[in-house]
């Protein structure tokens, strides 16, 4: 139904046929080549015995009929997005998934169109153009349908785009409201209901005043990550990306409302609260990571919380009713900040590392992709653990003057990344959000750039960039099973019950994305700053995998 399975974005499946005991018997049941080479970050979704997958640009949508042997293609939809859109997609031309609601499949194309397709026939129902490629805007996120609205946000924080979240009428495609992430309060949809918990977020038109004059017009804060929805409170939660440019000296101030999380009324879009994880973000610590909603017993009472493993390396537990941070604890080695001051909600910056023009700051951890980038976490109510696919990367960072030319990158930083302490570039972490500590973890050579799925039978699935699809015991972290697939995995595993009533696991392989850019884009590792510095950390990836999109469906015999 949705990439994240539920509105709370838990990726927690109640299916229990696959257990730690029988998971070793998993075998490939079906495969399907997408015919596209770039990073496949999408989650396949299964509705009415049909699996829908979306590829990276050119954003083909395939409907596979699971009820037939070999899952043949039911229909294929080609949105024919503009070729030029590839040139403004910051970190590979990915797409993170489609969503199904009311007989329709909703698709975002790279060239800023949201398209509703008839789920059975693949016919276009409506198309709405939301942004302009020439300004650097793209859309890579998976939409979310809440009631009668399709929520869509844009990408392009590295191109001086002004971020927004737009709600479309799911029947007609007309724009219901649009909430910008920078600029005057009326653009941000800040009104009388806006009650942020922390003082620094209160005040009029902070989206203007916390920027140098006019800088908010190309200040980033795009919404390219995940949206969660709490039906009880009728609030949607989503994060805003980094402020632009990366070079912080060109944007003194807190740069509201970037690198933070918004809670908005699902119907009107009015902002209810906002919390900024990285005010005046120095290191491209986007705030787009998925808010995972759960009810946890904290301090003796059950609190409605939102969990976020943020780019800045902290696991936040936030009261989702008002935006109060209950705890924030590092889950990866951190040097860029010295902790989170829970009183003000602000991170304590490490002033020694504050980047200055023309000076290389060394050993900044986590690196720009953060402790965890877009790759979604999972939360199992059964184990009470929060599963984080994380990166262990540090970087050298030099601020340089960024030059705004519409439709071209607006970054202003030279970055080279490398493995963090320990030398492993990734780690799969099980985190106890109540006890605020790591329970177990599996070190991975490459960053864990795939999403996670966990089942009630305590099996957690994730993939690695060198092409292993793994199942681990969700309680102990014991590796139960793994299977090598054709390309590195940067997608999201899903598990579903097939038409035959059996439980299946599906994953899209196809290396790419920011971390896989060296393979997907054929980049040259001799340049340490290639792909904004990520290539420097991944020079050996081309030896480990090649590109190519392929769907794998695993099942028990």
């Amino acid at each position, binding site marked *: 139904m949705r990439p994240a399975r539920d509105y709370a974005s838990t990726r927690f499946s109640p299916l229990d046929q696959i257990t730690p005991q029988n998971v070793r018997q998993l075998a490939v049941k079906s495969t399907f080549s997408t015919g596209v080479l770039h990073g496949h970050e999408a989650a396949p979704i299964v509705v009415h015995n049909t699996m829908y997958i979306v590829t990276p640009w050119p954003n083909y949508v395939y409907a596979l009929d699971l009820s037939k042997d070999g899952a043949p293609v039911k229909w294929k939809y080609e949105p024919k997005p503009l070729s030029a859109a590839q040139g403004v997609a910051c970190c590979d031309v990915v797409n993170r998934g489609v969503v199904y609601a009311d007989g329709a499949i909703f698709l975002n194309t790279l060239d800023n169109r949201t398209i509703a397709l008839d789920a059975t026939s693949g016919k276009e129902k409506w198309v709405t153009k939301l942004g302009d490629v020439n300004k650097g805007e793209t859309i890579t996120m998976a939409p979310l349908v809440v009631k009668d609205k399709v929520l869509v946000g844009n990408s392009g924080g590295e191109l001086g785009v002004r971020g927004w979240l737009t709600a479309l009428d799911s029947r007609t495609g007309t724009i219901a409201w649009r909430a910008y992430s920078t600029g005057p309060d009326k653009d941000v949809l800040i009104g009388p209901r806006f009650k942020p918990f922390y003082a620094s977020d209160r005040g009029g038109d902070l989206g203007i005043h916390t920027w140098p004059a006019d800088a908010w017009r190309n200040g980033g804060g795009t919404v390219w990550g995940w949206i969660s929805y709490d039906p009880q409170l009728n609030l949607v939660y989503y994060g805003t990306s980094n402020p632009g440019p990366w070079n912080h000296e060109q944007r003194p101030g807190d740069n509201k409302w970037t690198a933070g999380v918004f809670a908005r009324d699902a119907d009107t879009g009015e902002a209810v609260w906002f919390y900024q994880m990285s005010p005046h973000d120095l290191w491209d610590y986007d705030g787009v990571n998925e808010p995972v909603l759960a009810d946890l017993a904290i301090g003796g009472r059950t609190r409605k919380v939102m969990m976020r493993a943020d780019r800045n390396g902290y696991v936040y537990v936030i009261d989702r009713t008002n935006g109060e941070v209950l705890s924030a604890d590092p889950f990866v080695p951190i040097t860029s900040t010295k902790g989170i001051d829970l009183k003000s909600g602000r991170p304590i910056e490490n002033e*020694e590392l504050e980047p200055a023009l023309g000076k*290389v700051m*060394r*050993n900044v951890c986590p690196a720009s992709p953060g402790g965890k980038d877009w790759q979604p976490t999972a939360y199992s109510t059964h184990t009470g653990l929060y599963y984080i696919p994380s990166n262990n990367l540090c970087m*050298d960072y030099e601020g340089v003057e960024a030059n705004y030319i519409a439709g071209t990158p607006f970054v202003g930083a030279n970055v080279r990344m*490398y493995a963090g302490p320990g030398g492993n570039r990734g780690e799969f972490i099980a985190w106890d959000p109540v006890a605020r500590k790591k329970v177990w973890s599996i070190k991975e050579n490459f960053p864990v750039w795939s999403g996670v799925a966990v089942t009630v039978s305590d099996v957690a699935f994730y993939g690695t960039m060198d092409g292993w699809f793994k199942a681990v015991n969700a309680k102990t972290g014991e590796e139960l099973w793994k299977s090598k697939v054709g390309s590195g995995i940067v997608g999201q595993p899903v598990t579903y019950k097939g038409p035959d009533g059996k439980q299946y696991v599906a994953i899209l392989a196809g290396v790419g994305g920011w971390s896989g850019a060296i393979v997907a884009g054929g980049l040259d590792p001799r340049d340490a700053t290639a792909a904004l510095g990520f290539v420097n950390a991944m020079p050996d990836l081309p030896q480990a995998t090649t590109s190519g999109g392929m769907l794998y469906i695993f099942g028990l015999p």
Partner: protein
Amino acid sequence: MTPPDAATMRPPDTRRVLDVSVLPRTVFGHQGLIWWGTAGFMVIEGSIFVIALVVYFYLRLQVTDWPPSLPNPGLFYGTLNLATVLLSLLPAYIAKTKAEKFDLAGVRLWLTILVLFGVAAVVIRAFEYFALNCRWDDNAYGSIVWTLLSMHTIHVATDVVDSMVLLTLALTGPNTKTRFVDYSENSLYWYFIVAWWVPIYVTIYLMPRWL
């Protein structure tokens, strides 16, 4: 006093003379001229080393991490080289004493041993470059340690070649007495090179661990 007159300066027929024919023609050490040339160049090269070391510490003050985003240099080969060159002081010293006694056989033997030590030092030096764990163009730290090491390597290599040439001369002749001064000064220069390896070794290998 009146201005001097050329006429008064004409030498008389019988003159006071200072006969220096008895003076030695071959001298070792600072009484001789060669020593001063060698010393002059040692002072110049020593100044360059001092300045390079000063630059090292100056650059150290510019940054917080040292070595910046790089591992510390490996100790093994540098220390091995230190041991080698310190040991080589012995053949150098003996070769020098032999030279000053005009003992050609001794010079040949100990100069050969000195050359062998020198070659060993150069070979070990090649591994030291890998033990630095950085390239010269990585950052200023890499630049200065490569420079320090290379400056010293050039000195070592030059003196090894120099010793080889002298060894050839010792073997083929002609071995004039002044040639023995060359053999002696060669050891002096080798002392100089060895002596500089100590502060450079300490700077390259130990300073990153201490600072």
